[in-house]
């Protein structure tokens, strides 16, 4: 017979082992991917001119960081994305709040929101460049545009799904509509807002990269297009690697913010 303690230890051990197995697999897959890619490129299974190779990308990244030609592009894109993300998310929440505050306004806006939501936002790119000029503003606006409408709709529908009995409690105390919002609607929908943050990280990247494809003279999106035009696919791949890393980091940061918010607003 094992004691309770031993059973728990055993459970704990199993848990740890399972975690280790998962990690080993994850790392093996990425190593295998790069090894096969490298081999395929060196042995000419694929055209190295088109598909580059991990070693060349790594070398190219090292050179560019050493020469200081990567950091400016990287920081421009990161700045645009973060700004687009923030404006899109906060703007969406504000619009949703306005829609909730004025029921008639929301009914009037309904068909427009549906159309805007259904519309592929990047298709508006040229119009945005015409309106805001070929610079940062346009690119940030692209980042905003892809995330703001969906944020508005998601948050607004979350506002309407709050259990009406919470409002009943508040109204019995004589609460105004604004007090109902502050005490019940907003805190109750905070989890939804946080989950839109995660979605918006991805969306802002889409908007900003497409924006840079169209107009810019710097940034990671620009590097991709430039590399494509001069047939430097190592540069294209390097930029993609940087984007993947940055996007993943931003996602992780948002996840940390989420954990913090959930802990402190429960």
């Amino acid at each position, binding site marked *: 017979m094992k004691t309770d303690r031993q059973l728990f230890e055993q459970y704990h051990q199993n848990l740890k082992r399972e975690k280790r197995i998962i990690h080993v697999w994850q790392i093996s897959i990425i190593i295998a991917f790069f090894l096969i890619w490298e081999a395929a490129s060196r042995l000419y299974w694929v055209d190295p001119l088109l598909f580059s190779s991990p070693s060349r990308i790594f070398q190219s990244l090292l050179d560019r960081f050493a020469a200081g030609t990567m950091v400016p592009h990287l920081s421009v894109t990161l700045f645009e994305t973060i700004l687009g993300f923030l404006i899109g998310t906060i703007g969406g929440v504000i619009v949703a709040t306005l829609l909730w505050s004025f029921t008639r306004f929301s009914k009037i806006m309904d068909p427009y929101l549906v159309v805007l939501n259904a519309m592929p936002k990047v298709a508006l790119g040229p119009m945005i460049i015409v309106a805001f000029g070929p610079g940062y503003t346009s690119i940030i606006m692209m980042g905003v545009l892809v995330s703001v409408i969906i944020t508005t709709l998601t948050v607004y529908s979350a506002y309407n799904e709050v*259990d009406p*009995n*919470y409002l*009943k*409690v*508040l*109204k*019995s*105390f*004589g*609460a105004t509509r604004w*007090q109902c919002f502050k*005490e*019940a609607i907003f*805190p*109750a929908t*905070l989890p939804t807002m946080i989950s839109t943050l995660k979605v918006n990280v991805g969306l802002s990247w889409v908007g900003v990269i497409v924006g840079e494809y169209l107009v810019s003279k710097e940034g990671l999106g620009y590097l991709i297009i430039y590399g494509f035009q001069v047939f430097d696919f190592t540069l294209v791949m390097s930029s993609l690697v940087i984007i993947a890393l940055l996007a993943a980091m931003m996602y992780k940061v948002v996840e940390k913010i989420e954990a913090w918010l959930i802990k402190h*607003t*429960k």
Partner: protein
Amino acid sequence: MVNFLTLEHVTHHYFSKEGYTKAIDNISFSVDEGEFVSILGPSGCGKSTILSIIAGIIKNTQGNVYLEGKPIKDSKLAIGYMLQQDYLFPWKTIMNNILLGPKINRKNTDSYKKAALELLQEVGLQNVENQYPSSLSGGMRQRAALVRTLINDPKILLLDEPFSALDYQTKLKLEDLVGTILKTYNKTAILVTHDIGEAIAMSDRILLMNKGPGSLAKIFSVPKELREETPLEVRKHPQYQILFDEIWEELDKREETGKVGVI
């Protein structure tokens, strides 16, 4: 003397695109100060609608409601509302939940803290003020909700089946607690329930309702002997069973004649 609460020919319709339903039809009754009245009836007879109208949350389509002789929308009297579930805000501590009423009414919440702790003590909750509702049991949460209602010193309490979601033992204990507290502070209360026993145990008068549309069927006065006992003791009283049977028969009769609809 003006009655504390008066309903005059109150009718309410719920409108929708497809048409309307008459929730309650021509309801008139009055309640004295300090009186405990139960509204008893099957689901869907408009019991909760009556409470929402008295609370001023919905506006009746016809008729008048007076509180202390004034139309309810002009009345500044504090009304306490307890719902089927506690509806404590899960993101607020128990203390902050309790101080919600004073906060909404822009009162200095600090000055209510002591009263809140005393009331918590009175309903048998200790050291919970800094906890979140999720760490309390159903009965404890409903007691905390009672404190949240009482802290505003409401002149009238509207109880919308507040015990129906609890297990039987907790329910009986809570009935006892609420009954005693309301009697001590001489609060007027209206309880909505479909539980005959609960209605007899707690109230001075019982209004029996018909269904479809909800209307008053009959009014029962609870005998004096029962009114003086606590809810738990009432259930053991010989008079209790007599009244229970009387109400049961009345409900049965209405069901047969089709006046009480099948749910």
